[in-house]
């Protein structure tokens, strides 16, 4: 294949002494080496894993002249998740008025932590189809915490959730809680 036929036809039997013609064979090995080297380079530099994206729809800001629609929610039918400093996380199922430090439970971002809490809340909810998760990131939380919790929403298949700011009452209790190092 990689040789060029250089033998002239019909030169037999004319008695002349000829130098033996060598076929011009090209050694392809270095070329193959180079080819594969370049392939390796391109394979490694190509980014195969294109980043994913997560949807996040925020509620529309109410206009000043429009009345704000409110719907009654039972506290037992919601769970509030408060994300804090150093990847710490708390949750409670009480209203802001009845919340006490004892009722705000510390959890973590693992499967046994917040995910179990959400699922448990869902099972015990009075009307599970309206079970709402209120996500309250404090100013100490990181972007990763937010993404992690939004991820938990899709893992637990919770469709009713909202991101809101924590109330002052919750922040006070959070500050008490965060001052104590995690056990």
């Amino acid at each position, binding site marked *: 294949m990689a040789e060029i036929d250089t033998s002239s036809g019909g030169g037999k039997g004319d008695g002349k002494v000829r130098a033996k013609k060598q076929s011009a064979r090209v050694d392809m090995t270095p070329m193959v080496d180079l080819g594969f080297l370049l392939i390796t380079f391109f394979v490694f530099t190509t980014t195969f894993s294109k980043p994913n994206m997560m949807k996040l729809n925020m509620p529309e800001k109410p206009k000043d002249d429009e009345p704000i629609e409110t719907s009654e929610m039972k506290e037992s039918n919601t769970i509030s998740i408060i994300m804090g400093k150093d990847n710490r996380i708390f949750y409670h199922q009480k209203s802001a008025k009845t919340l006490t430090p004892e009722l705000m439970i510390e959890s973590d971002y693992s*499967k046994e932590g917040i995910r179990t809490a959400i699922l448990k809340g869902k099972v015990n909810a009075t009307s599970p189809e309206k079970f709402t998760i209120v996500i309250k990131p404090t100013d100490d939380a990181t*972007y990763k*915490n937010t993404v*992690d919790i939004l991820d938990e929403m*899709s893992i637990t298949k919770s469709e009713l959730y909202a991101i809101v700011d924590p109330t002052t009452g919750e922040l006070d209790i959070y500050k008490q809680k965060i001052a104590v190092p995690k056990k």
Partner: protein
Amino acid sequence: MPAIKPKRKGPVMDMTAMCDVAFLLLSFFIMTTQFKGQESVTIDTPSSISQTKIPETGVATISIDPTGKYYFGISNAKERGELFQRMAQKYGVSVNNGDLKSFEKLADFGISIAGLKQYLNLPPEDQLNVKMAGIPNDSTKSELGDWVSTYLKEVNTSAKLAIRGDATTSYPAVKQVLNELGKRDINKFQLITGVEGAPN
């Protein structure tokens, strides 16, 4: 009578086929590779189990670095010029063709519009050394909000808005973006995340 010695010859393998395959693959990889524009900041995104892939075109990206600086970039190079012209008009900055050409090469930038012109006039090798201060995004004056709303409402109405934050970015920096864009009736966001396996 001397014994006839067979000519010694090492085993020769025909490399041509292998060479063909190698270069075929090589040309495939070269043609499918998309070169990324120079990004002005490295951001390490958190990961999620989401399976939706980000589209190739029609995406405006707000990047937020760990210190809370904002960067903005759009994926379609052709639309960059138009966007820049509109923004320059709004802010009363004069632009010439050279500025537009230079701007079209920017994958993203993190600089206020007043400083942008000066930045664009720098030679490309000096542009790399400039420390970007981030696009201003305060509740009183949000240039970032103007960039985004100009793009989404005037240049490409079907574009998507993506937020690319670093894992260690603090939440208030993200909240500030959501607030400013909420004021401009932009409420749909895509959060860019890395890939993570679904939990069992």
